[in-house]
């Protein structure tokens, strides 16, 4: 609804100002593929009625992009964020952008958008200067009005100024406001999507209800990687209103009602081909190690490992594992596609409209200009909706039935089956501490299943070596990017290993890190975390159940402190208190950033304690939330979030960093509580009991 109003508003003002490309015409494309357009008209449009429209190829996944991007524009143009209409993720209307993931929105898009808004401000002031006959330096602006400071009755508005004008200007000439002059950045502002979401009005891809929509349910093989050979659809076809649509090995049962389509699908009998890998969720770790071994390659190497080992007084050998984990967004992948007049439009639940566009174009052998993706509100992404197999399915089916909107909404079983999981992984580390200073004399790490991404932190090490596999197609299951990919696997291993070294050497985990950390920012953050938590560190296990871990995602730093209680009879871990101290530079939207941290901690309590994809060959055994266990309310601890004061550094993304150290902090807390080291994520009650059995009795 808002989208339509917004477009009508701008289309009606045919004499709009920052238009070089009228709405609805050819897509706005950058001069070079994969770059941001330089023309600021691509981002901002001011209509004759003075409203400011902001067009960005990012998506609102729940992370608050809609709000924080509006804040940036509002800051430069001296508006209330409510006066900025956001239109996100439409590949016809928005300038090209990267996917919404990897915590890149604030890092990549924000500076471009701020620059565009600054450019607009300068242009408006110049126009006003002419209209009002006063120098720019004598003008003030607020809420869409511009006036002469010395004579406030001499005023004009954005709407009056833009009447009938068109402007071309390129980014990079005008600098955004200096931080000291900013009044909005750093303040809590109401989320722009709040009303829509609490009233049930927010439209997700499955809520579109385009007239004539048919619902398509797709025949799935029992195992990943298999394809359809034959299908008997005769019984299904007897259901009134059912039709079968085929495109190669894709077979869909289509009906006007989603539930009838689903029921009729159950009547289709298919045969499938394709070998299943001989592996399951228990044997996967050895499988990965064996398969990765021949292609292991040194990615980082410093100093002499053998000499380092000789200097070590304490040596620890650790093996750390994590299971496959699903994104399990509460909204399963959903798309609606329509093939009309030689163009394919897909309304999608997507994190990356432009990637989806290109993928749909490729799958259908169409030009990119023949595909339009329109992102809706997205019911969670976390990396899972960076790729769009569901959108391609919808488009392939829609191509067969011209003019008819086709909805493909995966159910939970499909979503768990077709997801690209966080990869299972094994990290082996041998490392040693010297006797006196607590220096790492050597650190030898080999990983199978992921890369060594973010494996290093700014810890002083006299020698080290990191190896990672180069084998393509290592995983028997489909894998993908899961919020802070690689980083959380590697942080779990590194921080657990450090904790084990400290304990073995009789040092407390904070003192050891203070000695190792070479980066002043991380050191300050460590102090902030320890102080805020109110923790007197002591060599573990102390029985108090407090654990520490540090982590990084690009320039974003996090220190986590967790407190847990472990039921030694059942192996159940209860998280009581979780604190993160976070340094992501200038925090533009403090409440939004805090939400991301709270969410990451909560999500990763599930990652650490309960979430695991069980499988046999290509068959996924977890089919719904009865066995795939997400954290529920009773699992939620007291959560504390504190941001480092660091407004001198450019804003870093906030989606991934707080994910990185969660599982490690919890594992270290379990050790502090019990003396048992859990090394396998998730540390389910059974695995905790196993670990407890290994604790030597004194």
């Amino acid at each position, binding site marked *: 609804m808002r989208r339509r109003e917004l477009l009508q508003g701008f289309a009606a003002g045919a004499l709009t100002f920052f238009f070089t490309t009228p709405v609805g015409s050819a897509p706005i494309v950058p001069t070079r593929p994969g770059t941001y357009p330089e023309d600021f008209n691509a981002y901002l449009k001011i209509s004759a009625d003075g409203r400011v429209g902001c067009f960005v190829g990012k998506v609102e996944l729940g992370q608050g992009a809609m709000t924080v991007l509006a804040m940036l524009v509002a800051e430069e143009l001296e508006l209330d964020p409510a006066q900025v209409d956001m239109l996100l993720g439409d590949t016809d209307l928005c300038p090209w952008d990267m996917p919404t993931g990897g915590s890149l929105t604030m890092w990549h898009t924000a500076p471009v958008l701020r620059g565009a808004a600054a450019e607009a401000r300068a242009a408006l002031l110049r126009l006003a200067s002419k209209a009002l006959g006063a120098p720019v330096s004598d003008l003030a602006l607020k809420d869409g009005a511009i006036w002469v400071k010395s004579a406030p009755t001499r005023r004009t508005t954005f709407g009056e100024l833009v009447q009938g004008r068109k402007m071309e200007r390129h980014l990079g000439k005008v600098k955004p406001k200096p931080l000291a002059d900013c009044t909005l950045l750093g303040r809590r502002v109401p989320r722009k999507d709040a009303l829509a979401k*609490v009233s*049930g009005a927010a439209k997700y891809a499955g809520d579109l209800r385009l007239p004539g929509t048919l619902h398509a349910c797709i025949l799935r093989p029992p195992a990943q990687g298999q394809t359809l050979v034959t299908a008997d659809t005769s019984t299904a076809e007897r259901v009134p209103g059912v039709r079968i649509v085929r495109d190669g090995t894709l077979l869909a049962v289509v009906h006007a009602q989603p539930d009838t389509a689903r029921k009729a699908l159950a009547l289709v009998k298919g045969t499938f081909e394709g070998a299943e890998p001989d592996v399951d969720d228990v044997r996967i770790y050895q499988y990965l190690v064996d398969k990765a071994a021949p292609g292991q390659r040194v990615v980082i190497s410093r100093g002499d490992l053998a000499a380092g080992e000789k200097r070590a007084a304490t040596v620890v050998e650790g093996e750390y594992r994590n299971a496959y984990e699903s994104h399990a967004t509460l909204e399963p992948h959903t798309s609606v596609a329509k093939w009309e007049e030689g163009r394919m439009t897909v309304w999608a639940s997507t994190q990356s409209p432009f990637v989806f566009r290109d993928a749909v174009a490729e799958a259908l052998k169409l030009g990119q200009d023949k595909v339009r993706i329109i992102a809706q509100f997205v019911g969670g992404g976390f990396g899972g909706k960076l790729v769009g197999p569901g959108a391609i399915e919808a488009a392939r089916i829609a191509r067969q039935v011209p003019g008819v909107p086709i909805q493909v909404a995966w159910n*939970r079983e499909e979503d768990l089956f077709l997801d690209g999981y966080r990869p299972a992984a094994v990290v082996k580390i041998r490392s040693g501490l010297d006797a006196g200073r607590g220096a790492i004399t050597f650190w030898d790490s080999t990983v199978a299943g992921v890369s060594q991404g973010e494996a290093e932190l700014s810890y002083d090490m006299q020698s080290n070596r990191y190896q990672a596999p180069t084998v393509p197609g290592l995983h028997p299951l489909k894998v993908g990017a899961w919020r802070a990919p690689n980083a959380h696997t590697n942080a779990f291993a590194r921080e657990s290993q450090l904790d084990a070294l400290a304990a073995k050497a009789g040092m407390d985990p904070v003192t050891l890190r203070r000695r190792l950390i070479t980066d002043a920012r991380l050191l300050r953050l460590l102090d902030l975390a320890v102080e805020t938590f109110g923790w007197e560190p002591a060599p573990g296990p102390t029985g108090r159940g407090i654990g520490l871990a540090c982590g990084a995602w690009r320039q974003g730093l996090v220190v986590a402190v967790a407190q847990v209680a472990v039921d030694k009879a059942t192996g159940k871990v209860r998280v009581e208190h979780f604190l993160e101290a976070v340094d992501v530079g200038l925090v533009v939207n403090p409440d939004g950033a805090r939400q991301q941290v709270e*969410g990451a901690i909560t999500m990763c309590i599930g990652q650490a304690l309960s979430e695991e994809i069980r499988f046999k060959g290509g068959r996924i055994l977890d089919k719904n*939330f009865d066995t795939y266990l997400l954290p529920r309310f009773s699992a939620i601890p007291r959560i504390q979030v504190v941001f480092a004061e660091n407004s001198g550094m450019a804003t870093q993304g906030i989606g991934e960093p707080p994910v990185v150290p969660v599982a490690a902090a919890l594992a270290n807390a379990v050790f502090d509580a019990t003396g048992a080291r859990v090394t396998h994520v998730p540390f389910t009650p059974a695995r905790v009991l196993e670990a407890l059995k290994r604790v030597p009795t004194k």
Partner: protein
Amino acid sequence: MDATVSFVLNGKPVTVKNPHDRMLVWVLRDELGLTGTKVGCEAGLCGACTVLVDFEAVPSCSTTLGDVAGKSVLTIEGLAVDGRLNPVQEAFREHHAFQCGYCTSGMIMAAWAFLKKKPKATKAEIVEAMEGNICRCGAHVRILDAVESAGKNLGGVR
């Protein structure tokens, strides 16, 4: 076989011709166009589809049309009165007790059903009441705060 079933939906009588055993969530979303009620698991496990039937919170994915014959059904679309948000909606908005918002309708409905019975609940009681509702984004701490504060504001209502 289609049956003719009447019930009260958001305060107004409705009659639909649908199979008796069709799940309410499809009747609401597909037949009646009320898409505020979401679908997350279709098995009574996530709470995204929660609606109130005679003021009891139920998963509409596991409640049939026949089950609500002659009863009163309240969905997220029926909570606001004359464009004024219900106190629970207001509290969710105030606390930003959502991220993606996909669980939000169900959360609000579950909380409203609970608070109607017990506005002065303890945190532990709220946790228990909300346990059937999943939030993947991890908005839990804010949802609990929002429900608690809505309860306080509700003190004496009805």
